[in-house]
């Protein structure tokens, strides 16, 4: 397991996401209200790019005729067949145990920390003042 610096925190605003490359694998990093999550950018169903999917919430009903909408912006729908994944866990809503997308642990590290290592940061300059998104993969 190595730790990869993939973006500066400022690169990904609240509600935004960014596609990054981790050891040749496409990974999509989400910022949900300041919390960062990373998922493999490949739907486990047929391989659609989750980065191109719509961010949505959960519509649920306690009974016929009722509805509850919650967790706005925390669910990504695959752009192909519409499978819904919980960005916090990578699990699909309809078949959470069998169909889940690979999730990578994310931490935010201060620039000073990143400069000391042991991190892999080949693609951009790291400055001591900024904060960085680090993925363990």
């Amino acid at each position, binding site marked *: 397991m190595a730790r990869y610096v993939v973006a500066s925190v400022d690169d990904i605003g609240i509600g935004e996401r960014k596609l990054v490359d981790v050891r040749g694998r*496409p990974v999509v990093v989400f910022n949900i209200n300041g919390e960062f999550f990373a998922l493999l950018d490949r739907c486990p169903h047929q*391989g659609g790019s989750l980065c191109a999917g719509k961010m949505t919430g959960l519509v649920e009903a306690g009974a016929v005729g009722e509805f509850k909408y919650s967790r706005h912006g925390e669910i990504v729908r695959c752009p192909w067949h519409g499978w819904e994944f919980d960005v916090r866990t990578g699990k699909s809503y309809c078949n959470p145990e069998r169909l889940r997308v690979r999730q990578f642990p994310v931490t935010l590290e201060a620039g000073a920390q990143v400069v000391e290592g042991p991190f892999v940061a080949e693609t951009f300059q790291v400055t001591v003042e900024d904060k960085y998104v680090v993925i363990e993969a």
Partner: protein
Amino acid sequence: MTTDVRTPNRPSAAGSSTVARAAQERYKVIDSDLHPSARSLEDLKPFLSKRWWDHLQTYGYRSRQGLYQGQVYPKAAPFAHRRDAIPPEGGFGGSNLEFMRSQYLDACNIEVAIMSPLNFTGQGDDNHELSAALARAINEWQVECWTRLEPRLRASIVVPYEDTALSVEEIERWAEHPHFAQILLLTRTSEPLGRRRFWPIYEAAQKHGLPVGIHVFGASGHPTSPAGWPSYYMEDMTSHAAACQGMLASFALEGVFERFPGLKIINIEGGFAWLPAFEWRLDKHWERMRGEVPHLKRPPSEYLREGLRISTQPFEEPENPKHLIDIFEWIGYDRLLFATDYPHWDFDDPATTLPRQIGPERMQQILSGNARKLYRLG
């Protein structure tokens, strides 16, 4: 900590991994259902006479059902598209050839794709002359804007099927043009497609050796479900199978294949798992009530066995893949044609859809071999 993924190394048409690319290089694909689209009706203006252009501007369509300008059901995704298939400039998926090349033709290793235009085709319109004018325009548009520019594409002869004579005229116009691979009908017509009024279409198809592709939908005014107009898009999608069965029962029982033994039809986008049970039921009834249809010399399923091919999309996904293989065997591997339905949301990726357990020969047969024979692609 990482969570477990069911199939972490599945190749993907959208992924950038070179490993995935290499894996799918092995299979060439002939897609029996690609949907190109005009950007708007304006794109067809060069192929319409002033008379019909003015008519469309002044009076519009004369559909047999309501909501003709919108979708009968909300489609869960814009224009029923894969969200990533909308071209960079916006608008309809399948309306930008360059984008189609990179996202679909190249990425999916497409050798040949049979185009089934659905937008602005005028099919099913109750003004038959207008329907014919639009069909002709869309056929010219397929050649001028697509097949002439991209050799991997083949056109479909779109016909104004509610008027048989005009349909035959359109078939005769294009039948010997090498860019056309099939005649295109839709499943829900004003009467079931096996009825005699449609036979001249099949006679022309047989004469020219052109298969007849029958794609789901059709603005005939009949709901997709024989139980009436359903509430949800999900019901609409699921009920296509019922509409297909009604259409195919008509083909089998009216004696179309007895009269045109060389005719080949393709059921497109209706799924396929229902087909074996449907054929068993037809045969069971025939054994008991054969006298009602004395023009049939053999069990109905035998006619369908020879005359009917079925596209695999939208693919069936049973929990146990063994069930899928049983269904393939009941249908017959030689009747299955792979289809992507690009750019629509229920797109099937040729790199990941078919179960590997069927082995490379059958994989290749479904992905391209059967289609190569049927469309006479050499």
